[in-house]
């Protein structure tokens, strides 16, 4: 396919240049095209096994084909990492530039094989499988650029994941030979196993100038906060073993220790814990009778009894992750994968991705010296919290530990967030597992604020042509003390609004907005004319609300500015027979919606309704000329997680279900249509966001045996 594609793109470019055209030329050309097509066709229909073998024979790409680079003995060595490096001192931010996508560009150096003066490679393993996976993942990602001049971050193809396999001096020289090295500026190195015997430094020992280090075993003394990135030690078992997710809950064992090379002192203490707490603690070690190699990695033993590893981790609530010679342990990854809460005992260890991950919600960190108290400490953690931690642990693994790709992408995202902090991922995005993201709400109006009374509210009256009724509504509303402005949304394109002189005289500004189309959604448009945050949406036939009732509604809204505060309440019910939602407008003891024929709400929800309504709900509403109020109730409940507030007793509304159209009334078809709306919206939202409550708001002294004239809102509930 691709071959013929290329061919035809070449063709037109060639032909016009040939002024005198000879037949033989065409024949040759044609035959080549034909040949190409046949060959392509053969590739297309060739059985796959053969194709891939053919492919490998054709693709001689091998790490051994990478160009060989000889490092002169005298080649310069970079300086040791500068501990005072920070993004504003050692990182050239100009390279990243202004970028509307707020995404850094990452360049990967092509693979080279570095050898020293006598031809010995600088690394005993060369390119590891993990580093290859990591670079592949980056080159596949949106971060990647092949244009070195546009790159903000450079990643050497020199594998330094494991310091043990490196020749330190030569690796450093190789780094300095990279064409864009420039004192390591904007270079990122990935290292998971730093240090080496006997003292095991906690950061890579390779001198690296100003390069950033994504390191797997930082201690608080080597980690340059805000510059380096602490990454996990990848566990190759992740790719080998599939541990299905387990429901959070109590497990067979309370504490499990599965590491094999635990220091004597600590093993003694663990054994003491085991003695004290018996069955609750399982203490595993390497199986002595098994041969070395892969098989032994997958087994653990306790007194001759053999357990499968890492499967056994799923049988415990807490799993010990103790420091070894290094602070970072691959076990942490296995433990998280098993949904076991890690008990991390590695003093001064900088936990992986701690810049963005809230480990307090997924792990227990205990100082090494408190190992003997581990059992008591863990027992004091509430059950519900343990379950949350188990879920959180598993989520961390899936999102940030499960593959080299996950590790690489997380690292780049963290650096990206530093360069474009105003576009950074939020705490919730980093830390909430999908199930929590789905069920939790983060209200956009989260500050507990009772706005002052003084700005008042803007009444938005939606009208079509019921002028007489409209004028009555306007007259009534204008008596409400806190009314700041009246906005009439004239939804009739065929008829002009009455002349200015004919309108009732009111003390507040009155504006008429003419709409382009007769849509119900127009009533929720965030008009610039609405200058207050409180909006009273009111139909042009709601004349039965008293001034006291409206003013009281506004006062209630001030106490609940993030809710819909309305008068007639409605309810949704689950119809067991039909297996779907049903709309209810009868005298119920519960409320889950208020009609927006008369309701106060924050102007923010206008903006939300107009620009952020999920799915095709807005169109559905406009097409059906119905249910805009139900849609609004869904929207607000979904984003705030809160029920609306019904105010004041039930009144006899002349036509409470009326929308702007005459003729619709409380008949059966109307109810059916409203029920349909609920079902439609619930399916678009993917959930039923409405909340049911059994209360309504009345003035403090409502119906109290108290002189009416002393009540702030005496005229409430009169019919």
């Amino acid at each position: 396919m691709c071959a013929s594609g290329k061919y035809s793109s070449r063709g037109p470019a060639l032909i016009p240049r040939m002024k005198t055209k000879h037949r033989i030329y065409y024949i040759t050309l044609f035959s080549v095209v034909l040949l190409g097509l046949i060959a392509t066709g053969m590739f297309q229909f060739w059985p796959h096994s053969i194709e891939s073998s053919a492919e490998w024979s054709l693709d001689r790409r091998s790490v051994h084909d990478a160009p060989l680079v000889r490092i002169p003995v005298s080649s310069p060595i970079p300086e040791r990492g500068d501990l005072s490096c920070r993004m504003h001192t050692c990182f050239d931010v100009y390279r990243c530039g202004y970028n509307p996508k707020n995404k850094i560009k990452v360049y990967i150096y092509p693979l080279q094989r570095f050898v020293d003066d006598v031809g010995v490679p600088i690394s005993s393993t060369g390119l590891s499988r993990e580093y290859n996976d990591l670079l592949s993942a980056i080159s596949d990602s949106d971060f990647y650029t092949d244009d070195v001049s546009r790159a903000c971050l450079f990643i050497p193809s020199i594998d330094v994941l494991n310091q043990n396999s490196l020749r330190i001096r030569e690796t450093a020289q190789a780094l300095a030979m990279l064409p864009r090295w420039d004192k390591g500026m904007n270079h990122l190195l990935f290292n998971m196993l730093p240090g080496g015997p006997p003292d095991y430094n906690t950061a890579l020992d390779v001198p690296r100038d100003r390069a950033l280090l994504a390191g797997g075993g930082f201690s608080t003394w080597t980690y340059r906060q805000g510059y380096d990135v602490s990454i996990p030690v990848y566990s190759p078992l992740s790719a080998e073993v599939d541990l299905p997710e387990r429901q959070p809950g109590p497990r067979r064992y309370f504490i499990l220790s599965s590491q094999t090379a635990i220091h004597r002192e600590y093993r003694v203490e663990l054994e003491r814990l085991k003695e004290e707490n018996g069955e609750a603690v399982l203490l595993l070690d390497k199986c002595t009778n098994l041969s070395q190699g892969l098989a032994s990695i997958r087994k653990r033993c306790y007194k001759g009894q053999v357990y499968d590893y890492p499967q056994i981790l799923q049988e415990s609530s807490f799993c010990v992750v103790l420091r070894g010679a290094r602070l970072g342990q691959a076990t942490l990854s296995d433990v998280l994968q098993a949904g076991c809460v890690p008990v991390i005992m590695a003093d001064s260890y900088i936990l992986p991705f701690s810049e963005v991950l809230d480990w307090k919600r997924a792990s227990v960190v205990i100082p090494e010296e408190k190992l003997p108290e581990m059992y008591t400490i863990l027992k004091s953690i509430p059950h519900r919290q343990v379950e949350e931690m188990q879920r959180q642990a598993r989520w961390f693994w899936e999102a940030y530990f499960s593959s080299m790709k996950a590790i690489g992408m997380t690292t780049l995202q963290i650096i990206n967030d530093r360069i474009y902090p105003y576009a950074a991922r939020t705490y919730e995005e980093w830390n909430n597992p999908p199930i929590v993201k789905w069920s939790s709400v983060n209200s956009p109006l989260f500050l507990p604020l009772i706005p002052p009374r003084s700005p008042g509210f803007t009444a938005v009256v939606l009208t079509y042509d019921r002028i007489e009724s409209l004028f009555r509504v306007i007259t009534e509303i204008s008596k409400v003390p806190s009314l700041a402005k009246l906005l009439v949304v004239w939804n009739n394109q065929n008829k002009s609004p009455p002349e200015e002189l004919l309108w009732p005289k009111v003390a507040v500004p009155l504006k008429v907005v003419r709409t382009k189309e007769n849509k119900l959604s127009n009533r929720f448009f965030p008009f610039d004319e609405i200058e207050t945050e409180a909006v009273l949406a009111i139909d042009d036939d709601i004349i039965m609300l008293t001034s006291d009732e409206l003013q009281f509604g506004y006062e209630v809204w001030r106490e609940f500015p993030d809710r819909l505060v309305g008068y007639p309440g409605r309810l949704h019910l689950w119809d067991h027979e039909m297996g779907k939602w049903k709309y209810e407008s009868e005298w119920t003891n519960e409320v889950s919606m208020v009609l927006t024929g008369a309701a106060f709400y924050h102007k923010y929800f206008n903006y939300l309704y107009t620009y952020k309504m999920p799915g095709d709900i807005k169109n559905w509403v406009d097409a059906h000329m119905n249910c805009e109020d139900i849609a609004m109730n869904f929207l607000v409940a979904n984003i705030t997680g809160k029920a609306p507030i019904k105010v004041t007793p039930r009144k006899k509304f002349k036509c409470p279900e009326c929308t702007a159209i005459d003729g619709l009334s409380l008949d059966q078809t109307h109810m059916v249509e409203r029920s349909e709306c609920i079902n439609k919206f619930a399916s678009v939202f993917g959930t039923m966001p409405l909340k049911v409550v059994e209360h309504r708001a009345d003035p403090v002294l409502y119906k109290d045996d108290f002189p009416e004239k002393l009540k702030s809102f005496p005229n409430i509930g009169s019919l």
Partner: protein
Amino acid sequence: MQAKKRYLISLLTGAFLVLLFYFGGGGDPGPAATGFRSRHDRSRNGYNRPEQPWPHFSDPLQHFSPWDQSDTEEYNVHISPRQKSDVNSSVYKGKRCRMQSCFDFSLCQRNGFKVYVYPQQKGEKISESYQNILSTIEGSRFYTSDPSHACLFILSLDTLDRDQLSPQYVHNLKTKVQSLPLWNNGRNHLIFNLYSGTWPDYTEDLGFDIGQAMLAKASISTENFRPNFDVSIPLFSKDHPRTGGDRGFLKYNTIPPFRKYMLVFKGKRYLTGIGSDTRNALYHVHNAEDVVLLTTCKHGKDWQKHKDARCDKDNAEYDKYDYREMLHNSTFCLVPRGRRLGSFRYLEALQAACVPVMLSNGWELPFSEVIDWNTAAVIGDERLLLQIPSTVRSIHQDKILALRQQTQFLWEAYFSSVEKIVLTTLEIIQDRVLQQMSRSTMMWNSHPGGLFTLPLYSSYLGDFPFFYAELGIKPNPKFTAVIHAVTPLVSQSQPILKLLASVAKSQYCSQIIVLWNCDKSLPAKHRWPATSVPIIVIEGENKVLKGRLALNTTFPSDAFISLNRNAVLKTTRVDFAFTVWQSFPERIVGYPARSHFWDNNKERWGYTSKWTNDYSMVLTGAAIYHRYYHFLYTHFLPNSLKSMVDQLANCEDILMNFLVSAVTKLPPIKVTQKKQYKETMMGQSSRASRWADPDHFAQRQTCMNKFASWFGGMPLVHSQMRLDPVLFKDQVSILRKKYREIERL
């Protein structure tokens, strides 16, 4: 052109194309086979250009760590972990101090996190700000006067201003500190500092050897900041209030959230020297319309000496605008570094709900250890000054709305008073000491904030009344009734027994706890009514009302309904109140309400039990609230207030209302109550004298004012509404109504 040549060309072309085909197209690993479709196009040209994406290698590659890696661990096993940590703590001192190496945790184990303040020495001058810091600590629940109980030590020597040119500068600090008997080379000491260094280089050195002490320092740079050891505090002025403090200026959330100006700044320009570059360049971005960045060269005596070409123009422009007006009418406020990294402007912008745009490279932002500043500020880079306008313009209005609200939350939670700044500092250090019992990021960064979210209560977010929505969970649908008994059981007709029976009948009741604060011994088992829920009787030691609130928190349900023994409550009433509480788990839900008011004549707060159109408290003689507030009452409030309540045997409900409103910033919720409630609740026979007593009322006035002064302001908020059942008093058949009992008033 000759025919031969043409043949040759065409042949060559053909050959070339064939070659291309083989090497280019054929060499491509088929997408179907490898499964890397997206790479398809790019990898095709792999061999032709050096800038290739990462190729697929056919070689079998080794793992980065050998399977039996543990052998190397074994090799190292002879180094004892103890030795290792000893080595660390001996090596990492001074600039590399960390909690692990420079802090003695063992001092905090026995008595918890207690803070000792050195006694003030005669003749030692202490600035007002430092005096405020010291008295805050002395008034806090962390304070101990016994150094042997202390975990943290605070100097009584004023270290706030270490600028040698400042009049506040304390001389000979070095010798004074060294001569302190408990100094111990600064171990477990915390040193507060606002200014360090002086012109021209403004180093961050304090001018004396701080040893292993921790620093709570303003304007600290990331290079000098020792993570999880030092605390970065905001720069605050000497007029910063000691307690309470003003609320944020945000009164409402306007939509769209843009204000008159997009970005403003008004301040000095230094022309030369450290920190002058950014301010000197601001005029590039100034557009005199919505981006107004004004500088003046006038400062110091000899500013004219350094005067540059722009000064006169800048100075004239500068005088045209009013700083306050700009602060209140701008969406974003630029906060560039001054000579030092931090500035007063930061807190000013925060309070004014003007989202700070930071231009102070290398400043470790205040309380950065716990506060996620990306949610309340725009962190710019001085190097990218010219991009700042386009950056702030690109910020979506939803984000602006959130940033702005967060500025207000952070201001009120951590910055509005010296007390809050100091307590936040101490709580951060306490979190390090508590380790696994410390607050999570979410507790610090969402309402009501870390100071009101005590980790000693629980480290689980779901145990608090504040995070249900964020976690997507609901409070436990059961309550625990707590009944306070003070009179012995003599007859079966006693109100307490009726109360027990009606509460126990509630479908939401999980258990009843009777607090027996009576001289007479407990009645026999059979005297208690038979109920379907367990009744637990706890004998109180104190014969005071406090006993009801000082409960520990070992109960499973999230809600407590606290009841006076004489409360007359029908089951439906309890049921209804509890369903209301489930919608407002962070508030107190109660029946009889009271109100406060400002008495202009007496210039103090007044208390009223009159029936008014609004209320700000509900009596806890019958109220539902989250069990966390029990804990907070006992552990957050100072002993001075609690013992006052004990001695008076009064006001405990007022205190509870103060506390909850201080946390929520919202009023309590009153639900329907029976009219004669007032009489039955308050005029009960046994205590009738007490409630009728005018002293009792006067006490409550006094309490209010005492509490208000401790809280540094009046936290109570008025409400004008009451929650009734949906069909309350509606003209519809009583049979339709769920809460019929409530109808019969």
